[in-house]
């Protein structure tokens, strides 16, 4: 069964090719069949592979499938090879399964769109790239998948390209992530230069053998990889692209910009965890980046009025939790949270898509309201997703995974009570902004009439994901045991915060968030208005609304100087040298052409004078 591994990326890729070439000529039913069928096949194969892997674990708990040598140049011969262990297995199962559900949802959501086949071609290509990224045996193949998902992200953000704003959002996402990717590419060069291989497993062994903990090489390599991860996973300081990425169709936001692609950075760090363990300052930086991001994005989410932007900031914030877990060495907890987050965040986006579609593409939450009765399915699924996101104790998956991260942050050698406190504060924020959304959108007065109700293709994925958002967290213990076959255990150091205390604090934080949201948005709506009305509140609101002024800052720091330089150098300074040459030649031509008068006697005089000069030169020199 494990030999089928290569089919998991190959089938969606074939589907993408098919749809790119023949898509516009196929009927939409056929397009949907190809688009969803390939992903379904991929998901089934990954389940089969998982079953085979679990029932008969291969030697050393890892399976490598080498297809062919990609490049053979001197000592550099990366292969097209797939590496399956507990980490990549969990990732591909979640990715293919969630992708399948979202593809199914898209068949209805995108119905009637003129880019129907284009949409599925991009989505299939995305799944193929993502699985390649996850299964890659060497960092070069991983980088191929990494750039592939970036490309698909760009294509899908700007999917409705007739609106220039969407195109700009796509470009922003592409350029901002490119900053991180450049750092990552430099990191790959550094690793290959100093360790002589890009095969991840060999690389990790070599790093352990050649580099002492805290050696400058290890620190540089880990920092560069962190740069790539930060860009792709929308963490500080490169998080600005993700909220704008919501310009894409909602299924895209659900799949790429919430459930799967943006967690690629988490996967990269978990995959190369040895490097980060060898570079304690950088590992600490991962935790700090995560903690800072989860707080800042939480505050920004509080002020947004666009339904999808709130969810985008919450994605940034939740990936901050994963980074926090990675930073304290809780590798398994980060992947656990990735899994539950994929379920409930995809669910939230799908429910949001139902709402948005039902209200004629209305995104402003303050023009919604009262949808509880009108769209009961959207309400219940959104409520379940929201509870999982905020961490409703004991019931939802999000609680278990977040709880594990919080406890790890407190009880790891790399952790601290401060990081734990930030995590708890983040829970309050998460619960607050989640229930703000739920109360504003689904309670209160209805203000926009419902024009369209979802069909089966949109409801089934929502039901399945709602189910998974609840039960996905009950497998905490077996999951941890399974992850331990691929990732090292948490370096524990008790700080007197027991698991029960941590859970109780998280539960209390969740309740506090709900209560504040209930008081401010349901019980006493005047309170929120008066909060925003006073000058300090208004300033803070504007500041958070603009994502802590990061876009403004980057605009001033990078965009404007570059635009100014481009404008100043419009004539191209270097080119003016060559321009000058051409101009000098033209001038000479003009002067010389003055001598061509048509007067025979002048010509004779020039010839005579010239001869005299030549003879003089020959005779006297």
């Amino acid at each position: 069964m494990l030999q089928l591994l290569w089919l998991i990326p190959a089938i969606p890729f074939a589907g993408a090719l098919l749809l790119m070439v023949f898509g516009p000529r196929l009927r939409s039913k056929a397009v949907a069949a190809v688009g969803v069928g390939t992903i379904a096949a991929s998901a089934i194969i990954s389940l089969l592979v998982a079953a085979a892997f679990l029932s008969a674990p291969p030697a050393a708990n890892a399976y490598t499938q080498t297809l062919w040598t990609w490049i053979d140049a001197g000592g550099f011969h990366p292969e097209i090879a797939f590496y399956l262990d507990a980490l990549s297995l969990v990732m591909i199962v979640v990715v293919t399964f969630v992708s399948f559900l979202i593809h199914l949802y898209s068949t209805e959501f995108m119905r009637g769109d003129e880019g129907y086949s284009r949409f599925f071609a991009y989505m299939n290509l995305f799944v193929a790239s993502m699985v390649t990224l996850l299964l890659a045996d060497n960092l070069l193949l991983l980088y191929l998948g990494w750039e592939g998902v970036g490309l698909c992200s760009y294509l899908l953000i700007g999917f409705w390209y007739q609106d220039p704003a969407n195109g700009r959002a796509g470009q922003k996402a592409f350029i901002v992530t490119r900053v991180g990717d450049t750092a990552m590419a430099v990191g790959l060069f550094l690793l290959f230069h100093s360790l002589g291989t890009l095969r991840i497993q060999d690389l990790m062994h070599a790093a352990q053998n050649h580099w002492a903990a805290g050696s400058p090489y290890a620190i540089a390599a880990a920092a560069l990889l962190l740069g790539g991860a930060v860009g792709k996973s929308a963490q500080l300081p490169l998080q600005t692209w993700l909220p704008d990425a919501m310009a894409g169709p909602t299924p895209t936001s659900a799949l790429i910009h919430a459930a799967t692609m943006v967690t690629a950075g988490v996967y990269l760090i978990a995959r190369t965890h040895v490097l980060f363990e060898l570079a304690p300052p950088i590992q600490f930086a991962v935790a700090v980046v995560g903690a800072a991001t989860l707080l800042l994005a939480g505050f920004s989410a509080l002020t947004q009025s666009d339904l999808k932007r709130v969810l985008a900031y919450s994605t940034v914030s939740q990936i901050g939790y994963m980074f926090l877990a990675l930073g304290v060495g809780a590798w398994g907890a980060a992947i656990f949270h990735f899994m539950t987050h994929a379920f409930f965040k995809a669910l939230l986006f799908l429910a949001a898509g139902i709402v948005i579609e039902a209200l004629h593409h209305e995104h402003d939450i303050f023009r919604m309201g009262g949808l509880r009765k009108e769209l009961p399915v959207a309400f219940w699924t959104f409520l379940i997703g929201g509870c999982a996101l905020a961490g409703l104790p004991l019931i939802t998956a999000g609680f278990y995974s977040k709880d594990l991260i919080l406890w790890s942050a407190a009880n790891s050698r790399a952790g601290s009570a401060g990081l734990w406190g930030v995590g708890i504060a983040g829970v309050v924020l998460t619960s607050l902004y989640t229930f703000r959304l739920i109360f504003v959108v689904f309670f209160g007065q209805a203000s926009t009439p419902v024009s369209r109700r979802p069909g089966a293709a949109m409801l089934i994925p929502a039901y399945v994901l709602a189910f998974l958002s609840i039960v996905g967290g009950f497998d905490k213990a077996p999951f941890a045991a399974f992850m331990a076959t691929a990732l090292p255990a948490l370096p524990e150091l008790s700080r007197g915060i027991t698991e029960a205390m941590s859970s109780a604090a998280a539960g209390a934080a969740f309740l506090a968030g709900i209560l504040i949201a209930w008081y401010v948005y349901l019980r006493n709506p005047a309170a929120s208005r008066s909060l925003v009305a006073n000058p300090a509140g208004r300033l803070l609101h504007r500041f958070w609304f603009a994502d802590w002024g990061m876009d403004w800052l980057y605009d001033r720091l990078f965009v404007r100087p570059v635009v100014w330089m481009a404008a100043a150098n419009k004539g191209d300074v270097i080119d003016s040298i060559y321009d000058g040459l051409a101009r000098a030649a033209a001038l000479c031509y003009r002067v010389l052409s003055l001598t061509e008068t048509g007067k025979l006697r002048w010509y004779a005089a020039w010839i005579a004078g010239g001869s005299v000069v030549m003879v003089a030169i020959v005779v006297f020199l």
Partner: protein
Amino acid sequence: MLPIREGLIVAGILFTLGVVGVLVRRNVLFVLMSIEVMLNAAGLAFVVAGTRWRQPDGQVVFLFILAMAAAEVSVGLALVLELYHQYKALDTDAISRMRG
């Protein structure tokens, strides 16, 4: 035997006269005649040099120059006739349509 010094001075004077004639005269016929003077100056220089080295080559070259001059004059006169047909004039400055 011709003294080389004086012979060359006479050739130089003749050549200069020819050049001045070409540059100063505007009538095409006179330009042609001036060219003949220049050719003969060159021929004289050859003959003088030939006697200086006691070689017949100078006089042989002069015969060549004569033949060339005859050919040149026949072509030149044909052109002059054609020009006269076209422009009804023999003034070189009037025939200056080919300019840059």
